[in-house]
């Protein structure tokens, strides 16, 4: 797989305006895929309904007749259908309104899609995309909130991405459809959908399937995924006022993280904090630690710190959910302790205790 930087042409302002929401970027990426590539189809439950996968494909079934396909409640078979269609010339984009429902597709994804190329010595390829939306807040509970990136990234043959900005959506989805002849799983975070980004504020994406440096700093390396990238940016902005200078790596490519980028950064800062949207054990946090431990653990000047969900299924009650996920205060204190070696009473900590309240720009559960 090509994970080295490619020469990317500029994105037209029509596709990516200066201000754009995460949802608008997804909508632009879907429309681009259908417009530019005749063999692209979108398949999923609710693909043709008025909500259009949270507004990312609304109305496309009318604009592209026959190419946006509703499916019965049959994730397993629908995934197989996508694989077969991919084997025979289509580029299917399969949507799941919750990543949890992707678990019903796991046999097809893991035993079939991921293996078609290798198992037959390169005779086949399965170019397709699976969009999985991570739910959070308003009582998503144990079965509508799982962040399953590491489960999928464990499997050779799958590319697993977690875009955290409109540009990384526009770039990586276009790259997947046009240049990657294999299964790509993208995990989108529902809480980010209605967030509006000032696209110029984020450094340009140079590698669509790679990791991105979101902030340059010297005191600590924060490797973050998805919404935790935004949270790390917020924490860093607060801490910059106290002279703490964070470097933030948006891991983005969960299956193929940029080892060199991580090592260069950690060699510079000597300190590593990993902030993931999921459980820590056997996950992204563990994998980033593996990279450092295997490459050059000697660069670390302090033990690694990791932040993620509590080691339990997600509780429904808001009071518990707010404890289940780390909040801004948890992240800031962890950074301060890592950089300063102890809490620093001079640093004012935010009183906010629910991260979802800050990011969520829609009411209700879905």
């Amino acid at each position, binding site marked *: 797989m090509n994970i080295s930087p490619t020469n990317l042409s500029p994105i037209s302002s029509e596709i990516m305006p200066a201000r754009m929401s995460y949802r608008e970027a997804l909508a632009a990426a879907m429309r681009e895929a259908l417009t530019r590539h005749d063999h692209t189809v979108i398949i999923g439950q609710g693909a043709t309904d008025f909500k259009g996968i949270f507004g990312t494909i609304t109305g496309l079934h009318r604009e592209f007749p026959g190419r946006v396909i*509703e499916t019965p409640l049959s994730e397993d078979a629908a995934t197989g259908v996508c694989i077969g269609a991919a084997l025979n010339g289509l580029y299917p984009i399969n949507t799941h309104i919750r990543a949890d429902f992707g678990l019903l597709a796991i046999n097809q994804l893991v035993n079939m899609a991921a293996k078609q190329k290798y198992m037959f010595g390169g005779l086949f390829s399965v170019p397709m995309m699976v969009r999985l939306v991570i739910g959070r807040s308003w009582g998503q*509970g144990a*079965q509508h909130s799982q962040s399953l990136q590491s489960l999928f990234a464990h499997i050779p043959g799958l590319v697993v991405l977690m875009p955290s900005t409109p540009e990384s959506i526009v770039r990586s989805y276009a790259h997947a459809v046009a240049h990657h002849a294999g299964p790509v799983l993208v995990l989108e975070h529902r809480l980010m959908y209605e967030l509006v980004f000032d696209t110029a504020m984020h450094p340009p994406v140079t590698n669509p399937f790679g990791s991105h440096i979101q902030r340059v700093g010297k005191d600590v390396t924060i490797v973050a995924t998805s919404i935790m990238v935004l949270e790390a940016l917020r924490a860093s902005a607060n801490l910059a006022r106290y002279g703490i200078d964070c470097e933030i790596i948006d891991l983005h490519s969960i299956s193929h993280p940029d080892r060199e980028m991580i090592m260069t950064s950690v060699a510079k800062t000597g300190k590593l904090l990993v902030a993931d949207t999921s459980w820590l054990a056997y996950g992204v946090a563990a994998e980033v630690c593996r990279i450092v431990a295997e490459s050059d653990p000697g660069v670390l000047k302090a033990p690694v710190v990791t932040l993620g969900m509590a080691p*339990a299924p997600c509780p429904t*009650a808001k009071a*518990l959910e707010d404890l289940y996920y780390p909040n801004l205060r948890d992240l800031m204190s962890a950074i301060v302790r890592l950089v300063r070696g102890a809490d620093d009473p001079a640093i004012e900590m935010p009183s906010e205790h629910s991260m979802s309240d800050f990011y969520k720009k829609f009411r209700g559960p879905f």
Partner: protein
Amino acid sequence: MIAGVARYKEMFRQALRIRLVEEKIIELYPSDKIQSPVHLSIGQEAVAVGVCEHLRREDLVFITYRGHAFYLAKGGSMPQMMAELYGRRNGMSQGKAGSMHLAAPDVGVMGASAVVGSTISVAVGAALAARLKKKDQISVVCYGDGATEQGTYHEALNFASLYQLPCLFLCENNGLAVHATLAERQSYKIAEHARVYGLETIRIEDGWDFTKVGDVCGEVLKAIRGDGRPRVIEVLTCRYKEHVGPGEDYAAGYRSHAEVQAWMAKDPLCTDTALVQALRPALDAEIDEAVAFAEAGAMPGIDDLLTDVL
């Protein structure tokens, strides 16, 4: 006849009780006190009330995220349910479950799953245990029309039929899965299809009529208790509200409002306003008490976060 009237009144009371609880949820929802996705059963109460009329306490029902009606009809505690919706410690699962995962094992309500179709085979497994442990018990699994599209449904029907297990497959066919109609999703007829597995299958069209549902279910459950063999009941019913949430979404255009109104015109809870008036005060009082119980509940805290994981 007196018995008939008394029975009608009691079933009506139960159905109304469920509807009023959900109407209270609708009333409370804008306050954000209930931060749990709610899939309301309003319009579908007669199914739960009809089936539960003939279930014993020890019979099991496996329910779905749209589970308020079955939970209450089977005898689940209303205050504990309300507290669970409020995310309080005095909810039956201390706030870990919320509306989508109601359960009350003491009265046979097995936990609701929010992954469509995922309890169907589990109910068959419970029926297997009942058989092997020689329990006089029926395992009922409730699922929507959409769930029949999952492969696991077909596998479970085959399994139950192969081993002739004492379970009732109960399909609540409201014609919709989220916003998609049956015609957009199914190439088969649910009842007809189930017969392919050699299962006796009955279809009830008047799903608004709790006594009718009760009559049919009574016969079918009696048959299951008699020979221990699985059966399928499909009940046509009607969801009045949006798929999830407290509102109505007829304006979205995916369904016919007129059809729902035609259904309401037959629904005793809508037409028998005199009986509603008569029964309402006592039910309202019970519901207010349940809400007060919920509001008085403590919030779960850090000590609860990691309990019951292993």
